[in-house]
């Protein structure tokens, strides 16, 4: 009756793709807003170039990378909402009761969301390249590596957020605040060097800061300089996984502990 893991994962991937396709509004919105802001902010970032210096992103580079980071953080909310829906629709338990394992379900659900976040960034950078001549100095492959790493980080933070949130409204409010704070600290809207001093010190605590650093290095520096920011993204992704693993396994840990106590009590 059972078939290889790939069959079950593919069934979940197909289904999740359908669910995303049925409700494309938020993602379309975050792409359109990103494109619009790239057009609007590009001249502003070009004009302040003399203040920022050569090591900082300017013009189209800053606008494209900043909006890619900002709106993928808003996309985190969309991804987390898809995962939270499983709980509000009571389908999560139904999936767990099937013969698919936890890992298969999670992979099947997250792969399409990951693809959407990567696609969103591809559109923003692709548009910037076609319309404004954006060209990464470290090569397009370096930009792709950054996009994949940042998308994975966003996705895993979203998994963590979905386990913490108790309702869609709570997720929406917390997601907006998190996205905006992280965007500001990242320097996506106002470059970090122009932020107030106390915010500049806090900026490295934001995963967006390291994402923008990775994009900066791909756009105006060399591939060797990608290592540190990418490693930091891995750390933030691990935090997301850690949160979801801890919250998800808590009831199981309590039950296992109770069982072991029962065994100890028996003569």
């Amino acid at each position, binding site marked *: *009756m*059972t*078939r290889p893991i790939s*069959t*079950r994962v*593919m*069934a*979940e991937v*197909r*289904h999740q793709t*359908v*669910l995303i396709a*049925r*409700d494309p509004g938020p993602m379309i919105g975050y792409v359109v807003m990103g494109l619009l802001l790239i057009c609007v902010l590009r001249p502003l970032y070009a004009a302040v170039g003399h203040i920022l210096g050569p090591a900082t992103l300017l013009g189209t580079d800053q606008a494209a990378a900043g909006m890619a980071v900002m709106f993928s953080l808003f996309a985190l909310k969309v991804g987390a909402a898809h995962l939270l829906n499983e709980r509000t*629709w*009571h*389908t999560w*338990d*139904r*999936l*767990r*009761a*099937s*013969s*698919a*394992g936890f890992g298969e379900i999670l992979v099947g659900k997250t792969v399409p969301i990951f693809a959407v976040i990567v696609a969103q960034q591809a559109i923003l950078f692709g548009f910037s390249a076609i319309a404004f001549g954006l060209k990464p100095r470290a090569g397009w492959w370096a930009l792709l590596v950054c996009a994949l790493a940042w998308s994975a980080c966003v996705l895993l933070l979203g998994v963590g957020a979905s386990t913490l949130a108790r309702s869609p409204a709570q997720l929406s409010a917390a997601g907006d605040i998190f996205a905006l704070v992280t965007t500001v600290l990242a320097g996506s809207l106002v470059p970090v060097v122009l932020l107030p001093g106390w915010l500049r010190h806090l900026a490295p605590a934001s995963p967006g800061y390291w994402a923008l650093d990775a994009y900066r290095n791909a756009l105006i520096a060399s591939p060797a300089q990608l290592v540190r920011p990418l490693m930091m993204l891995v750390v933030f992704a691990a935090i997301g996984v850690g949160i979801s693993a801890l919250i998800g396994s808590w*009831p*199981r840990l309590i*039950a*296992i502990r*109770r*069982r072991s106590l*029962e065994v100890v009590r028996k003569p």
Partner: protein
Amino acid sequence: MTALKAHALRKRFGPIAALDGFDLEIAAGEIAGLVGHNGAGKTTFARVTAGLVLTDAGSVQILGIDVATARARSLLGLAPQELALYPTATARENLYLFAGLYGLRRRHAHRRVGQLAEDLVLGDVMDRRVRDLSGGQQRRLQAAAAMIHRPPVLLLDEPTVGADPVTRDALLATVRTAANEGAAVVYTTHYLPELDTLEATLAVADHGRILARGDRAALLATVPGHAVVEFDCLPAALAVSTYGPVEIRREDRRLTITATEPAAALVPLLAAHPDATAHLRGIELRPPTLDDLYRHLVRS
């Protein structure tokens, strides 16, 4: 052959013992009606059997395999009490998802989806989104998702809650068919007449354990039934009392006799009062129902 075996299950949620020595065995092809008031442990048992909740003690096996394993989960079809469907996907997409999760090949899944759609009268709505379906259609779809892979053990937790008569009939017929094909069915419900339709055996749960288990007829034989005797005018001399296990209640021109065999109890009563038989208008025997059985067990 035992298809499902739960042994000495214990589960506490804080101070509440949801399962407290819960034992249940169900044979292949058997439909076991699991009844009990709210909080009796029915849903916790269902969740434990589905591998969704770890017990504090005890074990559940499906065809001899512990439910903690993926293999056991593939042998179980679950229709939980709450609707667990994707509202933005169509009925067909929901069924194909579960077919895929249970490893059904595309062609096999296609055939099975078509068959269940026909059996559960869902053919016309298969391409409509679940949120646009009626409550009864959603209930039938939920049951179809549980049966998509022809599991040897089916766990249906109050599948007909809020269902209309058409939905109920279709569901019951499909459950009966599954049992005829060899599936062991655990059917929790508050609508006891459904268990008559399904010809189910009974398991009565209370406070996290099984109070009574067995054939309906055998269990019903232990429950008092009623004989209602109507008179033109009830003679004052007619003794109205309770003796032994027989309870006699007088009400206007009617006597209600409650006993394990009410007809047998009636004979000596009337024989002792020959004047009363002249005023006799009719006798109605009311055998005990499953509702009576349930109340009797919980009271005692």
